[in-house]
Each structure stands twice: as C-alpha cells, then as structure tokens.
C-alpha cells in the first residue's frame, strides 16, 4: 500500500517504507517550505469574511453530494471498507454524512457557539465600552487525527481552516484515502477563496519514527498540536511537544466511550431499537458508542428489553454486515461461555455477518472477570457486544460510570464521554446531578448517541476556541487609582 501527500504547490518529500506500507511524506525541508508561507496564508485566511469562508465548505459539500449521487465515489467505498473493516453500507452512510459536516448553517452555529459574534474572527469587536476582543488563529495547527471513521478528521480540519489556520493533517491509514478524496474536492474548486483555503491545507501521513514528524512536534513553529488518540502514542506525542521551543498548545482528545442508563419504566421498544442501532453502527468504535449499560429494574423486565433489542440487532446487523475471522470468533465464543459460567445470561447471534452479543448480569459487571481470563477480549476487540448490568436502585448506576475507566475491561479508555439516558422523570433530575459529578461530557437520548449537534463542544471543549487565541484591546483607561 502506498500513500502520497496532498498539498498545493511544491514541497520537498521523502519516501519511507514500513513493512508493506510505502509512505511518501513531507520532509523536514518540505515542512520548512510550508511554514515559511504560513504567516502570509494565515493573514489572508483570517482576512476573509467569515461567511465567505463558510461558503467555501458549503459549496464543497454540494460538490461532494453530487459526486456521491453520480457514483463517482463507488471505488472509494470499497477502499474504505477494506481499510476500516466496516461494511460498504456503513461506509456509504459515512460518505453521505460528509455533506452534513460541511453544511454552512451547522458550521456557522458551531462557530457561534464558541465565539458568539463571528465578526470577532475578522476584526476587533467591542465587548464593553472601550474594550474589544478579536479571535486570531493560533496556528499553524497540526492535527494527528483518529482512525475510527471518516468524519472525525474532517471536523477539526475544517474548523482549523475556518478559523484562519494553516493546517497540517496527518490522517490515520484506515481513513487516509477518504480524507484525501474529501479535500481533493477543495483543490478542484474554481474560486479564489477555495484556492486560498486549499493553500492553507497540507495532508501527509508520517510514520511514527519519521524525522519529519519528530521535527514537526519538537522544532517546527507550530502553534497548536491536536492529537486524537490514546497511549502509548499520546505519551510519545506529549513528550515531543514539550521539547518544542515554540511552546505549541497541545490539545488532546483521548479515547472515550459511551454508556447507557435505562430504567424499566422507560425500557420500551424504541429505546431498545436505539441502543441496538448504536451498538451496530461503527461497531462501537466511536467515542460515543455504547459499550456498557445499566438497567434499573427487575431482571425479568431486563430480559424483555433484551428481547426487543435482539430483533433490532438482527435488523441493523443485516444492513451493516461485519465479518469476524476464525480466531476472532473463537475469542468471542469463549467469552460468551465464560459469562455463562459466571452466571450471566447471554443473548447472541451466530450469523457470520452479524455476531452480536448482549449479556445480562445481575448487580455487578462480569466483563472484568471475562477479560481477565480471555485477555484478548479487550475494548479494541469487542464489536457488537454489550453487557447490561441490572441494578435495583438508580443510586447504583453512576458508580458504574465513575468506575469504568479503572476497570480492566476498559483499559485504554480515559472515561465515559457519552451517557445515553432513558429514565423516568422521577429520577432524571437527581441522576443528572450525579452524572455531572462523574465527569461525563455528553448526556443524550439513547436513540442518537452517535450524532452530534453543531452546538456541541468536543469532549468538554469548543474546538474553535482551541485553535484561536483572543487578543484583547482597550482604548480607554480603567477607572482605578493606585
């Protein structure tokens, strides 16, 4: 497999070979060439009217939609299905969602959620009498993005460009070709603004031992490093960034997961269907994907709920196929048996295209014991699998959320990002208060845990704010005498 960088103009590159991967990447010299243009590019980008910037992406989304409609992305579907392991039908949905990422209204709302008055991205705006602020690009921004799906790399990259930053994107191998294809659309657009945006973006894969990557992190005059991922890469990147004399801002979006809390009063077919959909979509690889659940109520009601789920898991699983290898099946089947040995009730499918598993455990999480025995059944391996712990009282539920990062079964995950909530009004208020204290970032309905509103922060932060700094200006003296 070979990956080539994508940028405007001429930059020095170098080819590195890593096993069967051949990487043409921007060299140290190339990065220097790129960064020499950064002040000028950022000045021009941040001088553009914000509406014009948004319009570039709105147009880009339309072109993408057209390409998709005409079947011009069919080959890409196959490529991405192969590199990510997702079914072609899921990739098709991903490609459709690209249009929404570039939706002008969504982008505007996202920026407004961070900045309020968008004029402040272009000029000083008065915030109080004689006091002004202006948001200025903190870049160049270097984004090391995640590989769980195509959309996550597009969001920070687009926001970085919108906020006037020269942007260097290092995608994951799994979504590399998709990301390149998306921004190729920008390269081919026939407008000055699009050309300017295009000039501000360079995409390159860097192997982890690449001197270019090391240079970017330790020496280059980069303003923001945005790392999406977990350890050990996170630790390595953090160490390297700390060496950089230009003191770039390091924004880490660590590995997170989702959890669901349901009470028996709310446990209806709709909620079961929603949970099943979120378990199947992206094979639980999103930071919002539900990978554990708590059911408040009786075991009998929980069984009823799982029976509803089973029907939906079969329905969604047949749309989004996922094939396991012989050794993966062995691991899964062994895990299922250990759950049974430990006293849990196992519901499962042996459909080779859709091997889902729902486990009901009474009072405690059994998954930890299973993972202790079958160590390979870890968070990275588990797909279409959820253990639902049945508890009597709602007070017991938050503990599971709070303790999740310290459980062996969730090693590698920082904490719960998203809680999918389906509980009665009686307990909702008190439960919300407890959840707030558990450190979660999102509390949303179970049905669409995987979807984000344009207004939502990312993991507790507004990304646009992370890619800018605020210049404060005052043209009057303060009424204060020493």
């Amino acid at each position, binding site marked *: 497999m070979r990956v080539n960088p994508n940028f405007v103009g001429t930059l020095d590159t170098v080819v590195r070979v890593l096993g069967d991967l051949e990487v043409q990447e921007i060299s140290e010299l190339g990065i220097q060439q790129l960064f020499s243009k950064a002040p000028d590019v950022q000045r021009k980008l941040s001088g553009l009217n914000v509406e014009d910037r948004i319009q570039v992406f709105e147009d880009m989304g339309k072109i993408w939609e057209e390409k998709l409609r005409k079947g011009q992305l069919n080959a890409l579907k196959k490529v991405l299905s192969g590199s990510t392991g997702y079914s072609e039908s899921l990739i098709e949905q991903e490609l459709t969602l690209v249009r929404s990422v570039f939706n002008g209204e969504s982008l505007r709302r996202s920026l407004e959620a961070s900045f309020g008055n968008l004029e402040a991205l272009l000029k000083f705006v008065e915030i109080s009498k004689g006091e002004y602020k202006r948001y200025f690009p903190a870049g160049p921004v270097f984004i090391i993005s995640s590989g769980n799906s195509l959309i996550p790399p597009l969001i920070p990259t687009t926001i970085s460009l919108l906020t006037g930053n020269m942007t260097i994107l290092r995608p994951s191998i*799994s979504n590399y070709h998709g990301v390149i294809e998306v921004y190729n659309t920008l390269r081919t657009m026939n407008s000055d603004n699009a050309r300017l945006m295009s000039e501000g973006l360079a995409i390159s894969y860097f192997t982890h031992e690449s001197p270019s990557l090391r240079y970017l992190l330790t020496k280059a005059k980069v303003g923001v490093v945005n790392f999406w991922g977990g350890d050990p890469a996170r630790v390595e990147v953090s160490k390297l960034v700390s060496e950089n004399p230009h003191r770039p801002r390091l924004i880490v979006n660590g590995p997170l997961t989702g959890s669901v809390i349901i009470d028996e009063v709310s446990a209806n077919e709709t909620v079961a269907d929603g949970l099943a959909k979120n378990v199947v979509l992206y094979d639980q690889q999103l930071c919002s994907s539900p990978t554990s659940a708590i059911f408040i109520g009786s075991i009998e009601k929980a069984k009823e709920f799982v029976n509803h789920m089973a029907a939906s898991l079969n329905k969604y699983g047949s749309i989004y196929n996922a094939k396991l290898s012989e050794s993966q099946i062995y691991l899964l089947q062994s895990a299922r048996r250990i759950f*049974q040995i430990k006293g849990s009730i196992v519901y499962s499918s042996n459909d080779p295209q859709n091997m889902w598993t729902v486990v009901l455990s009474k009072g405690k999480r059994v998954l930890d014991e299973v993972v202790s025995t079958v160590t390979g059944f870890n968070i*990275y391996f588990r797909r279409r699998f959820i253990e639902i712990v049945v508890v009597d009282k709602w007070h017991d539920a938050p503990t599971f959320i709070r303790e999740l990062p310290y459980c062996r079964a969730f090693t590698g995950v920082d904490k719960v990002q998203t809680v999918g909530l389906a509980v009665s009004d009686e307990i909702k208020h008190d439960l919300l208060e407890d959840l707030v204290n558990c450190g979660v970032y999102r509390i949303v309905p179970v049905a669409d845990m995987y979807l984000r509103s344009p207004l939502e922060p990312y993991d507790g932060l507004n990304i646009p704010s992370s890619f800018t700094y605020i210049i404060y200006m005052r043209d009057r003296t303060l009424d204060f005498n020493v």
Partner: protein
Amino acid sequence: MSASEIFESASKSPLLKDPYVEKVWNLIQDKSLYEKSPDHLRSLRRSLLRECLDFFSRRSDYYPQLFERLGVSPRNAELEDLAKLAIPSDVLRGEGHKQFLIKDVDQGGENFMSSGTTGKEPVRVYRSPLDLAIMIIANTILFEHIYGDYLEPGRGIALFMAAPELRHRLNFVAFVHLTLENKRIPLLYGMNLVQSSQGGSAWQKLEPNKEALIKFLKSKEEPKLFFTAPAGVHLMSQRFETMNLINRIMYKLLTGAPPVNLGKGGVIVTGGGSKGYDLPKYDVIVEKARRYFTAKNKNGEDLPVPFMDVLGMTETLTALIAKFGAHGMIPTPLTEVFLLNPRTFEPLEEGSNEGVLGIFNPFVTSWFECFYPGDIMQVSPWDGYYGRQFHYVRRLTVEEGWDLQRACGGTLEELMRRK
C-alpha cells in the same frame, strides 16, 4: 507421590462409595470395552453423561445452576449437549480451575500446569489421588491397546527426553512416569534442568543428560521405549545425519549408535508441540528417524520403528494416541471426543469433518471435565472400537486486539502494533 501411594490414597477416597464413582472406577479397568462396537460405546457414553451430570449436581452447588442456565437436564441430556457445556481451557489459567471443583474434593493430590510458552498464566489443574489413579489405569490400558501389546512389568527400559523436575509439573510427564513406575519399568530422564543467567536474571534451561542417554543407548533391555517431543527425535536424526565419519565412529564406540536399536517391542512415543523449532511434517520426521532407529517385532523380525503420537494437555486426564501408519488420534472408549463448528461452536453438522476439538472425560471425579483447548481437528471413520479417528490440523491463534485497534486510539497505528 509414587504410584503406589496414589493407589493407596485413592482406595481411601469416600467418593468410591458413590455409585457413580464406583461404576466409572470399574469401567476404566475394563479392557473388554476395547472389543465393543462403536455404537455400544456411544450408548454407554450417553448414559454415563447423564449419570455424570447427576453426580456433579449432587456434589456441587455450582453445577446445578450452570446446567439450568444452559438448559441441560441430567435426566435426558444428549451428547450434543456437551457443545454447550464445554469450557474454553483459558478459564483454567491461574486459579481458574478451583471454581469447578466439587465440594469436599479429595485432598492430597497434585497440580499440573501447562508449559506457559504462550506467555500467559499457565493452565493449572488439580488432580485428586483418585483421579490420579484413574489417570494411570486408563492411560496404561489405552497405551497398551494402541501399542499392540501388554507391557510386562519389570521388563524393558524407557528414556524420556524431559527433566525429572517436570514430573510434578507436566501432565504428560507425570502420566508416563507413573505408568512406568506402576509397571516397574525403569525410566531415564534425558534432560537436566540447569540454572543459567542472561542479562543478570536467573532462568532455567534444559540440557541433555549425556549419562542417561548413553545408558539408554547401550542398554540391552527390551523393549526400549523412547518418549520425546517430535523435536527431540528430529534433532537426534539430524545429528546422526550430519556426523562426519570420525564422529560417527567415536559415537558408535561410545554408545553403540547409530543406529539406535530399540529392540523387540521398541517404540518411539512423541508428544507435545514444536517446542519453538521449525519442524518438518510428522511423516518426514518419522521417515528420517527410521534411518537411524531400528526395532523388532515380538518374533525378533526387523520392522520400521513404530511411532506413537500422544495428544495430551494439562486439562485432560487421559490422552488421545495415534499410531503412525495405522490410525489417527484415538481416545479411551469412555472419553467423548467431539468437534464443534468453528463459527457457531455448536455440534459439527453432518457432512463436515473439521472443527474445534472438545473433550469430555466422564470418569474424572473432581470436576466436570468438558473443555475445548483451541485446536482444530479433523475426524474420519475408523474401523476400531471408537469408530472415528482424529487428526490434528492447527491451533487457533488469537489476536490480542492491538492490531484491531482503530478507535480514537488508532492514531500512530504502527506504534500500537506488537508484531
């Protein structure tokens, strides 16, 4: 414990008063089972399964709940239910076996462990004195049946290419040791466990015990039984093959070999995996070994040295044994060997002949011994008592997850790989 101590301790087991244990104790000693038809034995095993389930329901709080959860009724269980009951051997790592032991299990037995070459905690299984006695008897009868003759007590000599310390750790070594001890056949260990050090840390390694090897090679006792991993016999054959003339003469003067004359009834018994060596196929090993090892039949006529291959693992009380050129792996008549569909882990469908190996030993009294070790086997018809023979295909390997990781932590993928 010696074999005699095991039998003495076993004879005092309160379990022998249980009608089910009394029944299996008698059955495992019944050599006539090897003359029965496959259908007869299958029917016997089904009835034993039901009685076995009932026995464990009576002797444990854990099993009745498990059987209920799995929808298995002792009264009308079928052999197909074993597919539900089989546990992965991984459960037996560390202290995992303890949860399966019956209440008031007989104390004073031995613990056996897997070699731990997978880098995980080894599988550890407790064997009560009664189970050890059953192990000796059942394996001896099976061995003799496959070997094709009765091992005369006090006659012959055996060499095991293992260190004596492994007698108390590895199931296969213990079974050979105790069986031969019970038969009063001297057993020499061809390896020594020596302390060594590397990079400051102490570790142990196996080195040949030249004295024992020479003693075995020069011995005039018959039969000579040579127990080894396939690598052991292969390396010996290779050594003979690559010896120059002078070394060959000197070796011959010192040991009388090559060829290694195993005499009347001599046999090479292999067992265990590749031990880290890149080995040729089994038939190639046999073919090469037969150039340097000789044996005779009971009448003193030369014959290609017989090879038996043992499939034993820590978690099974009795082995499966193959005889090269005659048949594949065969268990005792009471052992239920079954194959599971590698996809569904349900019983293999009619017409399929390859699946995940499962073993059920109804004569084990301390725990319900029904498990799958993670091996793919083939089954084919056999005209002997078992009706079927099994051939090892491969071991299932498990990806540990890092290579599969592509979640938020999937960045810098190469850093996450552990190949």
